[in-house]
């Protein structure tokens, strides 16, 4: 709409205004400050004009018109407050109130209800209705949403939101006339994305949250705008609290990068921060192995003394550090500064090692940026979008919304390479929107991407100017892909030549094409190579330098991108700049007043190996939980037990923290100030919404306090001073406003890459490595991200636990039939590593011969997996295993118990 530059002049209530052609009258009125009352209209939704509240008089049209569905025209004269318009609205209200129970005093919406506001404005104090009011029983839509249909004004906003925005279609209107009610598909519990959108968009109190029902009145709430800490999308949320009790989280229309949309984690996951298990006092391990609560002074002093001692006796490199990417940029920056300046080691790593680093390294190598060259707005404008191993709806739900919008509103062609079946259900599935869905066999993205490049090269889709400028590059790839046959690709990835070629053609021929790469590529062996291959694909089709086109790697942690940019990874200084980058060394030496350490860096697997061998005597683990985020055979517990001194700084006493000598209580993201950098590289402020629980403090304060005690004071008065220092180190780093300009591809790097850079590993990248064949009759078990959870943190959120409270084995109905199992039954999974007993849930989007298990509840099945480390980037890969599945009944169990006796 806003693209059209033609402006139309119209008069609304005597005010002349100019708006773009195609604007709705109600929007034009809003722009000049006239609020036309409405229920069914919402800027995110297509006009429906069912509530008739927004009637206005338009000159030369004999009858009143609904302003939410009428588009402006040149010379239009609109009157919105003449007596007969007002009397029409009064009648509409009288009709609505005819069936509305007057229970405003107990309604959670009372005080911010459109119907209440308009009733006050138009005061229809008398009703001519003598008929009975309709009576609907209260209804629970699943564990967190409830409806009270007596209050419904049938505006259908929820149904339309669920369909148009979420693409879930979980809600529907049932019945006719006054007895219309909103319901989900009968017979089952509501199973949907649980995004809470219906609650947010309901203009009255007909759909409300069960988590905070009757706990508050809207005027009691204090609001804080901050950033959600569950995934890399970086949604702006409004945290609302009554005194110090968290009441609800929502997001205002137009707020942040999410435009007011939230996912289930953002909307219902806010209780995690105030879980009773939070560590609230510094803990120090006693001689008998138990923890004692001590004062901050004692705990800090102990850590400072031990660090000083270890540094003096064993050298700086006897201490290593790990940090989670749920920390703010300021925490991450100060952590690496503390480790580099005070301790003097480069042995630090962060959660970005679990996969995000693969993407950043490839981007830096090929296009010379560490961020996306696209932003969400480009997704909306794209002609083609390709998703590669993202499962975007689960991992980054708000990015998924942008993709859905692009497909549904703008008609972008979606190409999906996912290990998902395109099955429609009331939980949205991005592959159902796909024009070309290539169902890649689990974990075989290498073959699929190779197929895409092969299709582009062999179907003559290579841009002419690329072939002219970099003939050697094109030729090398051509000879390399020629060595791989289509049969081999089909064998491994399960994709046929024609399918891959059609998809490649769709992508290549699109003017603006965006590629999104997700965890199944980033968290795989050779992930950096796979992203590089996708970059090659972009170079070949000419999309790399085209504006509006580009490749994005989806970050999973809320600050994965920030962790890399703050230099909290082994291979980079803040910037990120290479450890041998002289310019950066000079800047850092100047800023820190001390030379940067020259010691060798250590990645997460290296840190753990060195701890096991005794080279590292002490670890400082901030929020990371390697014991529970790596499989049993990774030897994390052995490594931690071999340490002389382990310090953990966490919200909860995790399995890792239980092994620590000192535990510092840290603040959650809701309790501190700072910034997060989201997946598209947008730096956004995190603001303190609640008081720190107990004695917990923001992470940076602890680093600062330790540095003072260790005679290397790094002091700041407030978190903004750290950010100022970051801006000194990384010029221009900062809050970029609502519409940032993404970085441009670095021409020099690209030129260097296509002339010589690609050569070093092109042969390895374009070969199919023989994947280990699954044993006969075995199922591929994959630990996957669930839509309702994020890491282990969300399993402390009571709302999310009510939606999904335990890990269940997801298999499709065909596979279940083959195995002879049914929903809810218990099965035994076994392989060489161990065995586990879990219950089954049928999920039709799981591919054949594959079973999914949510990684958030991986505790019982972790023994089945074994760790592989990417030889190049050291990314730990372990989320796939082959298992045999057998039915497990209570008789089995009793037999086993008897045999044990």
């Amino acid at each position, binding site marked *: 709409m806003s693209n059209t530059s033609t402006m139309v002049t119209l008069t609304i209530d005597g005010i002349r205004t100019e708006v773009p052609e195609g604007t709705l009258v109600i929007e034009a009125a809003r722009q000049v400050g006239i609020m036309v009352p409405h229920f069914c209209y919402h800027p995110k939704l297509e006009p429906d004009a069912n509530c008739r509240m927004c009637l206005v008089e338009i000159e030369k049209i004999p009858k009143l018109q609904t302003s939410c569905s009428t588009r402006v025209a040149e010379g239009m004269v609109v009157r919105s407050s003449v007596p007969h318009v007002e009397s029409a609205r009064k009648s509409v209200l009288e009709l609505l109130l005819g069936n509305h129970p007057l229970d405003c005093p107990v309604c959670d919406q009372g005080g911010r209800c459109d119907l209440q506001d308009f009733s006050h404005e138009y005061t229809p104090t008398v009703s001519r209705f003598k008929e009975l009011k309709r*009576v609907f029983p209260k209804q629970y839509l699943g564990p967190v949403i409830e409806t009270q249909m007596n209050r419904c004004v049938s505006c259908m906003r929820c149904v339309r939101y669920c369909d148009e925005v979420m693409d879930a279609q979980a809600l529907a209107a049932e019945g006719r006339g006054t007895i219309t009610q909103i319901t989900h598909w009968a017979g089952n519990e509501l199973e949907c994305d649980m995004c809470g959108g219906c609650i947010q968009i309901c203009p009255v109190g007909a759909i409300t949250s069960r988590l905070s029902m009757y706990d508050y009145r809207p005027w009691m709430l204090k609001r804080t705008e901050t950033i959600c800490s569950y995934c890399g999308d970086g949604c702006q949320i409004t945290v609302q609290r009554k005194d110090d009790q968290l009441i609800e989280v929502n997001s205002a229309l137009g707020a942040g990068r999410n435009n007011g949309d939230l996912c289930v984690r953002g909307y219902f996951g806010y209780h995690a921060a105030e879980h009773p298990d939070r560590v609230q006092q510094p803990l120090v391990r006693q001689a008998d192995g138990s923890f004692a609560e001590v004062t901050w002074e004692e705990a800090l002093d102990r850590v400072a003394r031990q660090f000083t001692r270890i540094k003096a006796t064993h050298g700086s490199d006897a201490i290593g550090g790990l940090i989670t990417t749920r920390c703010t940029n300021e925490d991450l920056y100060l952590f690496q500064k503390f480790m580099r300046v005070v301790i003097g080691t480069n042995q630090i790593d962060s959660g970005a090692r679990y996969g995000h680093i693969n993407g950043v390294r490839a981007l830096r190598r090929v296009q010379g940026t560490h961020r996306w060259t696209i932003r969400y707005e480009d997704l909306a404008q794209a002609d083609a979008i390709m998703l590669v191993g993202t499962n975007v709806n689960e991992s980054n739900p708000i990015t998924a919304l942008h993709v859905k919008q692009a497909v549904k509103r703008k008609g972008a062609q979606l190409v999906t390479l996912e290990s998902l079946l395109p099955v429609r259900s009331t939980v949205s599935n991005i592959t159902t929107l796909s024009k070309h869905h290539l169902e890649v066999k689990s974990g075989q993205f290498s073959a699929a991407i190779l197929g895409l490049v092969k299709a582009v090269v062999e179907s003559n889709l290579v841009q002419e100017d690329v072939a002219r400028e970099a003939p050697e590059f094109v030729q090398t790839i051509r000879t390399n892909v020629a060595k791989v046959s289509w049969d081999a690709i089909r064998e491994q990835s399960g994709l046929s030549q024609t399918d891959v070629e059609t998809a490649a053609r769709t992508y290549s021929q699109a003017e603006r094409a965006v590629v999104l790469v997700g965890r199944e590529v980033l968290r795989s062996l050779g992930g950096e190579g796979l992203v590089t291959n996708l970059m090659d694909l972009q170079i070949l089709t000419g999309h790399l330098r085209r504006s509006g086109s580009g490749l994005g790697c989806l970050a999973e942690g809320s600050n994965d991108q920030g962790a890399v940019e703050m230099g909290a990874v082994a291979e980079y200084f803040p910037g990120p700049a290479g450890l041998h980058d002289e310019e950066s060394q000079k800047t850092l030496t100047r800023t820190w007043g001390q030379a940067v350490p020259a010691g060798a860096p250590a990645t997460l697997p290296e840190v753990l190996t060195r701890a096991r061998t005794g080279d590292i005597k002490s670890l400082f683990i901030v929020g990371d939980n390697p014991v529970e985020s790596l499989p049993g055979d990774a030897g994390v517990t052995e490594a931690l037990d071999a340490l002389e001194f382990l310090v953990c700084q966490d919200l909860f006493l995790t399995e890792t923290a239980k092994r620590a000598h000192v535990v510092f209580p840290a603040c959650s993201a809701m309790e501190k100030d700072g910034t997060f950098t989201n997946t598209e590289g947008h730096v956004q402020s995190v603001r303190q919404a609640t008081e720190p629980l107990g004695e917990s403090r923001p992470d940076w304060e602890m680093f600062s306090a330790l540095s003072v005690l260790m005679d290397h004071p790094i002091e700041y008065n407030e978190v903004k001073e750290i950010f100022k220092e970051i801006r000194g180190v990384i010029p221009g780093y900062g809050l970029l406003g609502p519409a940032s300009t993404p970085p441009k591809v670095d021409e020099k790097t690209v030129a260097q890459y296509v002339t010589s850079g690609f050569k070093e590993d092109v042969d390895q990248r374009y070969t199919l490595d023989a994947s280990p064949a699954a044993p006969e009759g075995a199922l591929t078990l994959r630990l996957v991200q669930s839509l309702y959870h994020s890491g282990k943190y969300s399993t402390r959120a009571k709302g999310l636990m009510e939606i999904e409270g335990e890990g269940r084995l997801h298999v499709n109905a065909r596979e279940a039939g083959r195995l002879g199992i049914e929903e809810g039954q218990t099965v035994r999974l076994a392989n060489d590593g161990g065995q586990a007993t879990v219950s089954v849930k049928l999920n039709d989007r799981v591919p054949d011969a594959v079973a999914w298990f949510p990684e958030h509840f991986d505790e019982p099945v972790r023994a089945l997996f074994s760790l592989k480390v990417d030889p190049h980037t050291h990314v730990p890969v372990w989320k796939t295993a082959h298992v045999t599945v057998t039915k497990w009944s209570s008789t089995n169990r009793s037999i086993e118990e008897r045999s044990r006796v």
Partner: protein
Amino acid sequence: MDTQKQTTRLLDAVLFREIWKAMKVTFKHMFHRPMTFQYPREKRTIPDAHRGALGLLRYDNGQERCVGCDLCEAACPSRCIKVISEEDKSLPLQRYATEFYIDITKCVFCGYCVEACPVNALAMTKMYEYSTHDKRTLLFDKERLYEIGEQHLEDAKKYLYAHNQEHDDEESRAYRYHFPQPIEKTEASDS
């Protein structure tokens, strides 16, 4: 002039006229009905509209009137009311106050809370004797407030009548809002 004035002053002094003047009032009051009364042995009659201690009321069937809507808390100018409410699990949608506190030391007896109450659960009574040695007992909790309401039920009702909030007993039963339950079909009448 001066001589006359001086004579009057002399006479006043000799005859103790000022004392007689004062005694006149005294003697007059000897035959007057006393204005004071012997509190606490005697108590005065208090008008119905008197704003005394607050009490919470029940319906005649014993059900708590209060639905925990927090409107009294919102109306209170001295912020002495605190309501914590939740859903009555046995009656879906029925909201009720799990806790209700009035810090009577802060209360300014304005009666706004009574006016704000949509179900007339709050009323002011004629109770004013609650001095205590322990200040903590002046934070009236829900139990105490219902106790006051029960003890001073008649006064509370009269307060509501006097302030035109309720007209008779009938009205307290069939109240202006039928909530939280919607109107039942069987109960409805044409009137």
